[in-house]
């Protein structure tokens, strides 16, 4: 069955009707396993002490923050090219989830770095890039909220998403350039690339899976909400006409 079959709102509602609840269930399960295992049953890090436990929230949320924007980019393109309403509404639905993930990544990143840096915020290139991404999410959500006509809103926010994506990439590069340019010597960014030994890795995988499943459950439920809202909007317009 081609993916485009889901593009029909009615089909989409029918198919997703029985997916949302199990998705939430699985997400909760994966998160519970990952977080409990990671929090209670893994050792402290030699250098970072117990703060390494923040990894189980920081890494998955940071991954989701970026991947959700990519998903919005793809669905925006699908809307612009194939005019599938479900696609446009899925992007709209995903944005607040993405913004929340970005916020979680920012806060956990800042808190994790506090013992290392001595303050709760430092203009580290990675944190800065996420802050900029957060602003992009806010702008996108604000634009959807400002435009009354649903199709116009879908079009304009899609264009914003496209242009924003280019500038987000540009900002990532610029932020790296900018932070290094301040003669701060060794980079202060949290070294996520350090070898994560197996003892941390498996619970982390559960957490990543949990976040992904949670996102899927949320975006499906929220898209269904948007489809319903759109239908209400259509009925209201027809009522006014008669």
């Amino acid at each position, binding site marked *: 069955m081609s993916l485009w079959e889901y593009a029909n709102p009615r089909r989409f509602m029918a198919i997703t009707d029985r997916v949302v609840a199990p998705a939430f269930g699985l997400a909760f399960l994966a998160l519970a396993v990952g977080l409990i295992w990671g*929090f209670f049953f893994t050792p402290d890090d030699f250098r970072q002490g*117990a703060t390494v436990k*923040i990894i189980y*929230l920081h890494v998955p949320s940071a991954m989701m923050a970026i991947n959700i924007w990519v998903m919005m980019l793809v669905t925006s393109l699908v809307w612009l090219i194939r005019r599938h309403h479900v696609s446009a509404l899925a992007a709209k639905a995903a944005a*607040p989830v993405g913004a929340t993930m970005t916020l979680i990544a920012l806060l*956990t990143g800042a808190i994790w770095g506090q013992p290392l840096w001595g303050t709760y915020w430092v203009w580290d290139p990675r944190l800065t890039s996420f802050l900029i991404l957060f602003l992009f999410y806010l702008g996108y959500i604000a634009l959807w909220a400002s435009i009354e006509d649903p199709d116009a809103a879908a079009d304009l926010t899609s264009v914003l998403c496209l242009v924003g994506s280019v500038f987000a990439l540009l900002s990532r590069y610029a932020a790296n350039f900018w932070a290094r340019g301040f003669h701060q010597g060794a980079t202060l960014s949290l070294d996520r690339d350090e070898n994560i030994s197996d003892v941390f890795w498996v619970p982390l995988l559960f957490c990543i899976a949990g976040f992904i499943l949670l996102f899927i459950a949320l975006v499906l*439920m*929220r898209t269904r909400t948007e489809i319903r809202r759109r239908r209400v909007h259509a009925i209201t317009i027809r009522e006014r006409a008669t």
Partner: protein
Amino acid sequence: MPDLGKYAVEVGLAYGVSLALLVGIVWISFVQSRSANHDLDAAEERWKNG
């Protein structure tokens, strides 16, 4: 409870804030879903009877 040692505040804060935000977005999404469901049922009722 594992001995979080001197980092108890940081770890606690990080977990607290993250879980609060996750619960928040899930809860808001549920509320919005219920509200849209309600509005749609009402609108379709009006449309059928109107």
